[in-house]
């Protein structure tokens, strides 16, 4: 996949799913554009208005903790977020992001190096993050789930494995 190049939005530890996509919307807000408009609503009201395609979220530990809600990942995809770089991810966010085809980078060094507003490039194929303060390697996804990510997410992957290609 091609490199992702964008601007950094930086946040702290334990960014939870309720501030990424509030619980009160989880059953009623389903339109991608409307989901994008609600992204990070209770964390950073500027974000949804200002985010540009391929911008990168950089955060501390346990990003996406809390609910199983998939919209925590998909609202970021709909908002144009190209990747999330964090010290660690909650297990449900990790699953949901892979299933949505959203690249995740676990790299404490890259988090340390990046500031809000920086330009950053994430090269998923090479496993590298290019920052104004250096280049950092990150570990690849587990082999067992790389296929899901490379197919563009769980649904295209499943369609392909069931021989149902050509869905969407």
């Amino acid at each position: 996949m091609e490199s992702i190049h964008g601007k950094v939005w930086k946040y702290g530890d334990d960014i939870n799913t309720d501030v990424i996509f509030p619980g009160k919307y989880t059953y009623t807000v389903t339109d991608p554009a409307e989901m994008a408009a609600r992204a990070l609503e209770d964390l950073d009201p500027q974000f949804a208005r200002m985010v540009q395609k391929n911008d990168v979220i950089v955060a501390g530990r346990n990003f996406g903790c809390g609910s199983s809600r998939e919209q925590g990942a998909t609202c970021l995809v709909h908002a144009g977020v190209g990747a999330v770089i964090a010290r660690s991810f909650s297990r449900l966010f990790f699953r949901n992001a892979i299933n949505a085809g959203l690249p995740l980078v676990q790299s404490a060094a890259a988090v340390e190096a990046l500031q809000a507003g920086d330009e950053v490039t994430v090269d998923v194929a090479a496993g590298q993050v290019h920052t104004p303060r250096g280049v950092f390697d990150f570990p690849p996804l587990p082999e067992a789930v790389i296929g899901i990510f490379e197919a563009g997410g769980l649904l295209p992957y499943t369609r392909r494995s069931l021989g149902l290609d050509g869905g969407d």
Partner: protein
Amino acid sequence: MAAQADKTFSEKILGAKAGKPVVPGEIVDVTPDLAMSHDNTAAIARTFQSIGVRKMLDPELHVIVLDHCSPAANEKFAAIHQEIRAFVEAQGIENFFDVETGICHQVLPEEGYVLPGRLIVGSDSHTTTYGALGAFATGIGRSEMAVIMATGKIWLRVPETMKIEIGGVWPAGVAPKDLSLKIIGDLGADGALYKAVEYCGPTIREMSVSGRLTLCNMTVEMGGKCGYVEPDARTLAYLNGRARGNFEIVTSDPEAAYSDHLRYDVTDLEPQVACPHSVDNVAPLRQVAGRRIQQVVIGSCTNGRLDDLHAAAAVLRGRHVASGTRLLVLPASAEIMRAAAADGTLLTLLEAGAILLNPNCGPCMGNHEGALAPGETALSTANRNFRGRMGCKEAEIFLASPLTCAASAVTGCLTDVRELLDDPAVLQAVRGEE
């Protein structure tokens, strides 16, 4: 050989499903024994249909409970429920519980779906609750549930297992919720990230199934993949007359390798409270006592069982909710609500000024009933206090035990129940019953 060594419950349950011995870190493709979804089944059904499969692989695998906004708060939710009922009918799903039944994490154990040794997934993070009966149970995403409908399969990483051994004698006025908050405060919101958490020790053996459900429910709040309590006579007594089908108890082997081994003693534990806006922001209650509160919620899948309502009633009997404070009582299921009606508990709570809500998840997540206004403070027995969680990002939420919540409802401010009730017999009597 190390590969033949003793194994934890999670390695054994996932290994049996994978058909081979497994070690932590390994990813396995498995078919769960049970897959739970709730009001998100409407979105899941749409995703399932988008895959291009007409009929789900195995309707018996799925249990659906309508609970997140029950009964529907508005036309949108009503339409979601309608869509789910039509899907249930079209797919021939028999394990369906409509809006009158209760909260999924209470309904599944109550209805005998949660059995020792079972592998259960749910499109809800608090699916960890079911480990209280010796199952391996964890949350998954909506698309993953749709794929299980189509293929029966999901990938799971075999977790490391953390052992938390608990001993000591409970002080009056302190409950399993206080223990859970204490542990989460110590370990942090990612303290058990990706790990299975096995609760054991003499205090767990003496703990009611209800208390065990509370601990396992809260386990996801420290990042845990699942909670687990080894089944015993209490488990079997709970399952007696409920269990749907046979089961085999799966336990950790004596020499199994744990990633961590922590020990807690409840003897000196005091009432705890999670302060805004994260569950691991835990303090002894006395440090924040006196803080004014406008709303108290007693109930939810965390603490809405009969013993929780009994605890609240013991405090509220002959007392009244403070002026300027509203008390919402939310039993976890219709079965519990009926039992609390039959034994007079509900009348005690209503006479004290409580507002009785039907079992549902609404108030806990700002979906339905009990929303907060900007500047308000709530105290709840639920499991999350994230900003905006109860529908308003300018509000603050504290979490505590039913005893603390009941005492605080009486005074209108955060209160140590032991200051309100000086009869230790009452306080002891309201904890640990089945």
